[in-house]
């Protein structure tokens, strides 16, 4: 089943333009939101609002990143693959801002509290593990590093599926009650990962 009659193509300048707009959108959004926080235009508790904004933002970007390869395959629109690394790195950027906001504005650099919370609170530990994995994936993103890693690159980057699981667990666990937005996010993540499960099944059958 294909949605497009012929594969979507973009010229070089169209790709550059799209990338520029994406940079402006993703960076501009977070900068603008912090500006609102600094000027006290972000509700009663700007700290909580920013922690939620960057956390949900990272999760949304992660899900969009995971949508790229099935979209490229099934639309078809192979050109979309050109945007995947950039979006993936922004997942890491948003997650880092998320952690920095928590450390600087929520815990206000009380380092013993920071370390204590990361070690003692399972949902924060889980979030930290996800962030460290994202860091590893980001560091191994440049083409040169990718070439040097050779065959080991793909298995390493498959840990992104584990990151999705950890991020959703972190999100759900941070809430006071179960029946909230995280349920919707689990469902959406499952939906996005479904084509991959089919693909995996086919490959396993072929291998047999």
């Amino acid at each position: 089943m294909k949605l497009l009659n012929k594969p979507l193509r973009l010229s070089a300048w169209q790709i550059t333009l799209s990338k520029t707009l994406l940079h402006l959108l993703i960076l501009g959004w977070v900068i603008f939101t912090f500006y609102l926080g600094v000027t006290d235009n972000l509700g009663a508790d700007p700290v909580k609002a920013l922690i939620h904004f960057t956390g949900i933002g990272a999760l949304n970007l992660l899900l969009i990143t995971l949508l790229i390869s099935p979209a490229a395959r099934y639309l078809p629109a192979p050109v979309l693959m050109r945007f995947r690394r950039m979006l993936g790195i922004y997942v890491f950027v948003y997650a880092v801002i998320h952690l920095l906001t928590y450390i600087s504005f929520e815990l206000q650099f009380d380092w013993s509290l920071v370390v204590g919370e990361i070690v003692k609170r399972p949902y924060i530990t889980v979030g930290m593990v996800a962030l460290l994995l994202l860091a590893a994936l980001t560091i191994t993103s440049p083409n040169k590093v990718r070439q040097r890693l050779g065959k080991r690159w793909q298995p390493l980057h498959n840990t992104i599926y584990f990151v999705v699981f950890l991020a959703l667990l972190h999100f759900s666990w941070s809430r006071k009650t179960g029946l909230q937005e995280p349920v919707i996010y689990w469902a959406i993540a499952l939906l996005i990962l479904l084509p991959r499960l089919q693909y995996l099944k086919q490959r396993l059958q072929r291998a047999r």
Partner: protein
Amino acid sequence: MSFSKSGIMTKRFKPSQTFKSNEITDEAVFSSRRSLLKSMGFVGAGALLSGSATARGWFDDDEDKPAFKAKPLDFTRNDSLSTDETMTPYAKVTSYNNFYEFGTSKDDPVENAQNFQVDPWSLKIDGMVRNPITLSYDDILSKFPLEERVYRLRCVEAWSMVIPWLGFELNKLLKLADPLGSAKYVAFKTLFDPKQMPGQRNPFMGGGIDYPYVEGLRLDEAMHPLSLMSVGVYGKTLPPQNGAPIRLVVPWKYGFKSIKSVVRITLTDQEPPTTWNRLAAHEYGFYANVNPNVAHPRWSQASERRITKGGLFSQNRIDTEMFNGYQEVAPLYTNMDLTRYY
């Protein structure tokens, strides 16, 4: 009349009937569509914005929503029981609320509660009392002289506010009902009205809590002079999102004990069930005294972020004090292991 290049006559389209936009879509349908779109907002690409959607002044709704009319009240200030710490501004006190009956986000209650009916109201005091009473809306506001008390409010989520409540001591109300000697506990219940409270209709919106919201105190806690029945804030009647028309305020306990929009107070000899304890007993106890030494399983309670005015750079984190600084209640808990009875 004009002719195009190809020679075919063209005519400007004129509709045989004209509609105004409000004739096409009924307003109720229109606004329910809007709320559907809004509720979907956070799952779409727009989710990136979800945090900043709370930004006042930038993304304000254009819906005509008449704000709840708060009435000025007569009161005398109680200085000896008031703190002189910097107060949390009215705008923040009334726009950052945990009131899951109106939605689980902090800014849901202010959004969804503006049309909440507080008059008529009926507050019943019954159970193990000699003189069961029912108070009307007017009784609630005028039966007892009102005092202003500036209390610290410490939320279990590790943030806090300083709020000038108006109200009367709960013990005055209880004495009027005249508890039996056998009464040991006081049970409180919030209004159950799914028509008015969307969180009670839709478990997804109400966080899956089993409504109505219930709370409880030991009788000696309830009789303590600090335990306040509040009917107002900042000199005026309570806005719905803060628990209009009448709510409990127990300043040495975590905020969730201070039940909102109370309709029933029942004296009993059994420890009554309490909502958050029922939902997660290992995280929320019956007592829920503010205690920096007993951590919530998922976060430390040793310090708190005080919400006052100003943006991101005027935040301050302060140490949490035992009983939220209300040491005078300590005798209520002598010989009690507060690690076990958290």
